[in-house]
């Protein structure tokens, strides 16, 4: 069962809300509605579900409505239409008291510019969520300290935010959000204000923390690399609408439309794709059935200079080169075992593509992708280049 369910969530800023919603129904675009009614469409009928323990990334460029969307979820902005269901309760319809309870207990938010109170110490900042709940001082200090320890700031509790670096300040923001042990973390461009190296550290740290805590996280970002790095699933937004929801691979390999395709054009695919994504079906010969003649024939047909050798269960045995096969035929050698080479470069299915470059450069033969000793695919230079260039279907001849 999903932790959060968002259905048809919309926000129209302006005075002619009803009319604008009708125009949205008619499929009118954001700029057309602005022209006709003077209203700005912030979010247009967003629907998605987030599962327990999932990192759900909402990603889009500025003006795409992602910041509005995350604020609709905890109702910092009042939704115009639609529902946000958490634990079976619709946030969009509940009264202020209930809403406050949900914000206190179930939803915490981390802000782009940290949102720390400058006149409070680190500990007092981390305590804030507990303090407004009226939790007793010693108890909330204890919980806040635990949260600060978790993000590695246990020694800084009496400092003030201005004494800390940006990365540390955002850890405080994270600790404050974790201190009241929420079900859902809303992270609004949480790492965007940090410089790139720190940002990467924070992403790693978030993933580490997530391993331990298994929170449900909704993460907003404009940085596609960040989305691909930390998101279990990604929702891509444009002009207030969600264009595609899917895993990193879905988005890269099967873009829903031209917009997504253009969007992911410049992505460094080597960080996202794995061996499995780019391998192609291998041509093989069977070590028990075939001899050098068949091997040579197959290589000629496919234009290969080497071919992999497997047994009847597709267990990888090695490879033979065209030269060796040709020699063997001249010398009338029948058994492939005599000419097989076993110095095969092998990788697992989920080897990141980034780590394949050097291997493939050094290797005279394609890289074998194996799963429990079984040959499942091969990677050749051409497929790597094609994947980097963003071809969704890999057609290559070796």
């Amino acid at each position, binding site marked *: 069962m999903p932790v959060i369910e968002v259905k048809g969530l919309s926000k129209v800023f302006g005075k002619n809300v009803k009319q604008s919603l009708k125009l949205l129904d008619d499929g009118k675009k954001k700029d057309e509605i602005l022209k006709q009614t003077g209203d700005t469409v912030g979010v247009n009928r967003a629907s998605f579900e987030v599962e327990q323990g999932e990192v759900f990334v909402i990603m889009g460029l500025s003006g795409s409505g992602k910041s509005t969307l995350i604020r609709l979820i905890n109702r910092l902005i009042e939704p115009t239409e639609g529902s946000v269901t958490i634990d079976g309760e619709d946030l969009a319809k509940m009264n202020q008291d209930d809403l406050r309870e949900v914000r206190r207990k179930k939803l915490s938010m981390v802000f782009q510019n940290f*949102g720390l*109170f400058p*006149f409070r110490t680190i500990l007092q900042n981390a305590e804030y969520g507990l303090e407004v709940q009226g939790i007793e001082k010693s108890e909330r200090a204890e919980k806040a300290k635990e949260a600060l320890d978790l993000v590695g700031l246990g020694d800084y509790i009496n400092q003030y935010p201005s004494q800390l670096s940006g990365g540390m300040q955002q850890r405080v923001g994270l600790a404050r959000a974790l201190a009241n042990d929420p079900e859902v973390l809303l992270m609004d461009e949480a790492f965007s204000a940090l410089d790139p190296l720190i940002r990467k550290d924070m992403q790693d740290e978030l993933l580490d923390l997530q391993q331990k805590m298994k929170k449900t996280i909704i993460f907003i970002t404009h940085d596609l690399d960040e989305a691909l790095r930390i998101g279990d699933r990604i929702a891509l937004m444009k002009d207030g609408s969600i264009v595609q929801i899917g895993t990193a691979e879905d988005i890269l390999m099967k873009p829903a439309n031209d917009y997504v395709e253009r969007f992911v054009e410049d992505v460094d695919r080597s960080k996202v794709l794995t061996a499995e994504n780019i391998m192609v079906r291998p041509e093989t010969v069977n070590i028990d059935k075939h001899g050098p003649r068949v091997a040579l024939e197959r290589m000629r047909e496919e234009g290969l200079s080497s071919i992999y050798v497997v047994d009847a269960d597709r267990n990888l045995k090695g490879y033979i080169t065209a030269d060796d096969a040709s020699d063997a035929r001249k010398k009338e050698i029948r058994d492939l075992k005599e000419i097989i080479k076993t110095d095969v470069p092998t990788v697992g299915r989920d080897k990141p593509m980034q780590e394949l470059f050097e291997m493939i450069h050094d290797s005279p033969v394609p890289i074998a992708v194996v799963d429990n000793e079984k040959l499942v695919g091969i990677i050749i230079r051409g497929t790597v280049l094609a994947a980097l260039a963003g071809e969704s279907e890999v057609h290559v001849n070796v």
Partner: protein
Amino acid sequence: MFDFIPEIPLASWVDWIVDWITSTFSFIFNPIRNQFGDFMSWSASQLASVPPIIIIIIVAVAAFFLTNRKFGLATFSIVGLLVIYNQGLWEELMFTFTLVLIASVLSVIVGVPIGILMSKSKLAETILLPVLDFMQTMPAFVYLIPAVAFFSIGMVPGVFASLIFATPPTVRFTNLGIRQVPKELVEASEAFGSTGTQRLFKLELPMAKGTIMAGINQTVMLSLSMVVIASMIGAPGLGRPVLSALQRAQAGPGFVAGISIVILAIIMDRFTQNLNKSK
């Protein structure tokens, strides 16, 4: 040119309103005049009965610590207060100080809540801004007239006039300070489930403190100027020698009393400013 329009009897309307207020609310004004007036003269005379040397020492020590252990303000306070004492204006000084203190405290008590209201309500802001403009631009003397009608002469109408004249900066700066709290911090406080009161006391007022203190500093300065003017309606203090010097065209005594006011103003200004910085 517009002679066909008869003169509108604006002045007599105002007269009528003031008379009406005076007679209708005399049951409020009279006790205030009596009780409050007694309280003020009592506190001023108490203060005046303290040996000057003790007050000078207290002020100097406070100035020393308030300015982070620097001698500048402390030295100035000692010299300045000794000059006033030497000129025989000590008692007047104590009366003026008491009046300014009470008027300022009242202004803050009234002004900060109004400022908060303004910051929370667009409607209140729209209504109050022109009212504040009116209060500040109307010549200060004009307030003395109804003040006398309501409270007769003496300290109380002085404080009343000062309240009207000196409250606006506190209101304005409170409003401004709260509205200037960064949006993200307001969102943070909301997102963690603060009530309106929690947001006000745990975020907005602490954040706005510097700005509010700047407003209070202005209020104190305006109170001082008003309290001096209030000597025209019989309020005791440093304004009196100024007024009598003016009436007799005596430049010397006028200057002496004037410089005493300046000394008091500088000390109070630096005190309120440093009160703000020290935190």
